[in-house]
């Protein structure tokens, strides 16, 4: 019970201090909206339905990775993060509390383009349960990628640089803009090593019925990525945060 009081208060503090700040709310709304509008202006005849999986994935990815990396690095440089390391709660629970806020923020970001699209197209055929689960798993893996960056970065600018280093190649290799089948042969194995590839494929399946992998396999792969990333983060935290 005591641990959960700490968990809930870390989450509440992060939401209030970071995610509910006007710049972040506006980023969470404006960023997905701008992407949607940009795509529409670029190809007015384009099908919004085809754009939606990509927009959701990008919104989650951009909303989570840098957010967690920057907030943790910011707290570490101001040494307030030491308070969390000194609290008598397990490191696992503390890490979960830190990523929980980012996951919620990622989910919020994901649904901005969905709400926007619902004004133009009929989304009644979408399996919302599956969509939510897919978004949740994309948010978890992206947040953990952010955590991985946070463990390595010492300064906020480093965290931002590392985030982009991960995010942009991921966007181009996960089949969002270029189908994986059209990628050069040597790049394809890399695509299948990225969690976003599986997340995007599930979303494509749910929204357009155009998935290339069985959904169960993609869900399984995302789960494996989540566990693996968590374990790597945990190992690195032990090594780098408790010197």
């Amino acid at each position, binding site marked *: *019970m*005591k*641990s959960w*009081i*700490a968990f*809930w*208060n*870390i989450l509440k*503090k992060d939401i209030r*201090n970071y995610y509910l700040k006007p710049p972040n709310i506006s980023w969470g709304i404006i960023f997905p909206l701008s992407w949607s509008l940009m795509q529409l202006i670029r190809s007015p005849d384009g099908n919004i339905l085809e754009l939606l999986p990509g927009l959701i994935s990008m919104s989650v990815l951009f909303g989570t990775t840098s957010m967690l990396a920057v907030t943790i690095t910011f707290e570490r440089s*101001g*040494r*307030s993060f*030491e*308070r*969390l*390391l*000194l*609290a*008598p*709660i*397990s490191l696992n629970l503390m890490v979960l509390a830190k990523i929980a806020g980012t996951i919620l923020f990622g989910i919020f970001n994901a649904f901005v383009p969905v709400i926007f699209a619902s004004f133009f197209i009929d989304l009644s055929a979408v399996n919302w349960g599956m969509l939510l689960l897919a978004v949740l798993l994309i948010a978890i893996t992206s947040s953990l990628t952010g955590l991985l960056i946070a463990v390595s970065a010492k300064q906020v600018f480093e965290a931002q640089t590392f985030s982009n280093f991960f995010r942009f190649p991921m966007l181009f290799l996960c089949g969002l803009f270029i189908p994986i089948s059209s990628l050069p042969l040597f790049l394809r194995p890399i695509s299948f090593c990225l969690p976003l590839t599986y997340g995007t494929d599930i979303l494509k399946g749910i929204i357009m019925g155009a998935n290339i992998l069985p959904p169960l396999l993609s869900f399984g792969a995302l789960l494996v990525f989540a566990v693996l990333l968590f374990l790597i983060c945990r190992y690195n935290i032990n090594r780098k945060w*408790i*010197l």
Partner: protein
Amino acid sequence: MKMVSVSNLKKTYDNFTAVDDISFDIEKGEIFGFLGPNGAGKTSTINMIIGLSRPTAGEITVDGIDVRRQTKKAQAVMGLVPDESNLYNEMDGFENLCFCAALYGMRKEERESKAHQLLELFRLKDAGKRPFKAYSKGMRRKLTIAAALIHSPQVLFLDEPTTGIDVESSRQIRNMIVDLKKNGTTIFLTTHYIEEAERICDRIAFITAGQIVASGTIPQLMDSVSHGHAIQLVTDKNARDVSIELHKHFMGSKVEIHSDHSLVMLSEQRIPLFPVMNFFHDRKIEVYEARELRPSLEDVFVKLTGIESSVLKKDKEKAGFR
């Protein structure tokens, strides 16, 4: 009862040894001072005891709990005031205290009541609703100490608590430390203010280059370097005229001229005052002042560590302007 026990503690970073095989115990309700210049290994020692850093070797127990094996259990009985005030700038004083209490699993009513109590105790009640970033340096320090006390720790670690803050706040903090000791809290204090350590610590350890060079109570430390006794006398006669006769009269002692009317008698044994006063009385010499000269803790520190007090002063200045 031993509250903190450290034995053969060592910490190395690559080729650099920050803490080199140190051992000490702290009794319950004691104020233990850790005195040394910047980079001596004070913060590294604290970080290992509180579980923020892993020792390369050695054992640490706090309240009988093995810190290396049961870090989280041990952290529940410890509080830390780091060398920098590290609360959350965006939150106000009250919220910061409540958040710190929540980290220790305290329920809402309990943490709010304790936060109000501490704000009152630290005279920060009016500032409780102001964001931490708007606090002065002294107020930030006091709130950081309050945050460390929110879960009523049995052992409190204070890392340079009065560095760089105003005189009034420093005085208040020192009084609070003494009050905490009276209430049974064990205190581990690192400082490079010798006079602060001398004023409030029960026992002191001098640390330099990662090693404890001496430890003990203040009289023990002083005895360890002073191998004689000295009395300074101020008279109405020229010191030079009196000194030769004084030396002849008290054969076992040495006499040094301090200034025109002041001289110092040095002896291996304690110097009884009555015969000395009689000596002056018989010669109709007025004695205006007679006082025993004892080495200061600063003298002891310089003698034992080989570090001039000016080095510590420089550290203080740097820290003050941080």
